[in-house]
């Protein structure tokens, strides 16, 4: 089984000189295709920085990172944008939908940047929203949708380009517990359908939905275990 993520000795520092702070102190992590990995840790542990590194939003000072077989160290800004576009689907805590665009247009947006023609991207976006039960809301603006609906639109947007990796940063953080549970069910279902999912959270309870839990503290991985509390997923669990 091939790895979607291969991180080797990732070091990330901020500031300079004496002020320099080392956030990631040498992280190595492989994530296999089809896996569902939760990265947990308290605030300040470096998990957000790790998420930004995995999401190619920020580049590390040291170490190497291959995403779906593509070495990312030497890519230009535009090449990184293209890799983000083709291989990554972001799900943010604050949904990060564009407020002036309708649900449909938000979902279309990554397809626009991928250069997909107007007709095709509309069909694909509609199909994606349908599969998430949002077919009656496709022309609504984000502020006309509830938090859970907005997150579904955001998930549809993340899935639109059929990415190699779904990257979710506290996806339930802005939702009430019931809606949050629904979104987590959706994440599990998406994983069951074959999507590789990396979930960043500070909440161990949320992390329990994942097949594998990686704990991070002070910029280092302190624990990495398969989730025993997940009864029915064992058949689908991917061994490293």
């Amino acid at each position, binding site marked *: 089984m091939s790895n979607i993520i291969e991180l080797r000795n990732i070091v990330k520092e901020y500031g300079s000189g004496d002020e320099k702070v080392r956030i990631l102190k040498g992280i190595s992590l492989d994530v296999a295709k089809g896996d569902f990995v939760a990265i947990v840790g308290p605030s300040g542990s470096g998990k957000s920085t790790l998420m*930004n590194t995995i999401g190619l939003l*920020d580049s590390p000072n040291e170490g190497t990172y291959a995403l779906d077989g593509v070495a990312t160290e030497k890519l230009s*800004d535009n090449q990184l944008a293209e890799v*983000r576009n083709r291989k990554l689907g972001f799900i943010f805590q604050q949904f990060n939908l564009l407020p002036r665009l309708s649900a449909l247009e938000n979902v279309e947006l*990554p397809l626009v*940047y*991928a250069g997909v023609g107007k007709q095709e991207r509309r069909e694909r976006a509609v199909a994606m929203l349908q599969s998430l039960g949002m077919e009656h809301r496709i022309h609504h603006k984000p502020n006309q949708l509830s938090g859970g609906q907005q997150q579904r639109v955001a998930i549809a947007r993340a899935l639109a380009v059929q990415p190699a990796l779904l990257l979710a940063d506290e996806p339930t953080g802005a939702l009430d517990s019931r809606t949050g549970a629904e979104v987590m069910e959706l994440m599990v279902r998406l994983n069951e359908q074959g999507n590789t999912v990396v979930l960043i959270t500070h909440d161990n309870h949320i992390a329990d939905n994942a097949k594998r839990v990686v704990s991070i503290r002070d910029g280092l991985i302190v624990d990495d275990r398969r989730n025993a509390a997940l009864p029915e997923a064992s058949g689908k669990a991917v061994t490293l």
Partner: protein
Amino acid sequence: MNPWELVSMAFRTITAKPMRTLLTMLGVIIGVASVVTLVAIGRGSTEQIEKQYESLGTNLLVVNVLGNGRATQLDYDELMTLEQLPEFESIAPTITKGNSNVKYDRTSETFTVIGTNDRYQTLMKTELASGRFIVPADLEFRNPVAVLGSGTAETLFGSANPIGQTVNIDGVMFTVVGLLKEKGSNVGGSSVDDAVIVPLETARRVFKLGSIRTTYIEAPSSDQVPVADSTIKQYLSYKFKSTSGYIVMNQEELMNARVAASSTLTNQMISVACISLLVGGIGIMNIMLVTVSERTREIGIRKSIGAKRWHIMAQFLTEAVVISGLGGLLGLLLGIGASYGWPLINPNQPTSVSLDIGMYAFLFSVLVGVVFGLYPARQASRLKPIDALRVD
């Protein structure tokens, strides 16, 4: 992402804040509107000047004797002899008596009396409404006959027919033999409409007017004007034994000089209007920079889902161009409206609306959008996604 999508997206963005967009455009609107209006006024003036001279014909030379004319006098018969030369088509010497009291029945008014010959009618391109013009026999026999300008006739006779009536000009009785059609104002504002035309010899004798002061000379064609010009100057310098004491005005040169003076003024005003267009562009740049910093998060989101630099660049540049182009279009409409409205407020100032200048002004405003949108768009495109996403 085709250009049409970019433009329609930009439209949606700028219409989301209509007041701000309108204020941003204002500089360009005013700039384009002023350029269009000023050009219309400039062209209107030029056309007006050309029309004035056209009404006399550009083959015309005007000889004016300066001073009191007593030292040297132009001789009527000598001038008429010159007419036989091929470079002269016709010659109409005139003597003028301003402020003559003209009376008919109980109506009395002051008019200009022009004493001239039969050539005057064709030279000044006037037409008869009724009756006849001065004929050579009138000069020969010093007939007391008069031809009235349309304005003169209306003042004295109203709508009645003046032909055959007798008018009193400074105490001398004249029979009205002809009535001219209305011609409109001539160069310098003097018009045959408000004149009384009498035979030259009659005027000289009756009113004891001295010498010929103004002589109109027509060349057979405009190519012949320079030859006619040099011949008449030769004659005059022989006659006056000097190159001063008279001036010869060439209608075409006069016209060109006046057109040039008028367009210099217009061009200066247009330059000022262009500066206001540039200032409008700076206003656009300013607002676009504000927009970019306001929409940092949007830029971050777009970049995180795969927007490349040129996508962001194209988005913001299109917005700037749509703002300036729309401003240019509104300015163009405003300018055309103002160009048509101007003569209503100021009837002496005709305007000539020209779409070519409108096109240039519009294209220039689009160019202003490109130039001043470039820097903010570049700023937007160079934001790092991680920094842009951190902003709330």
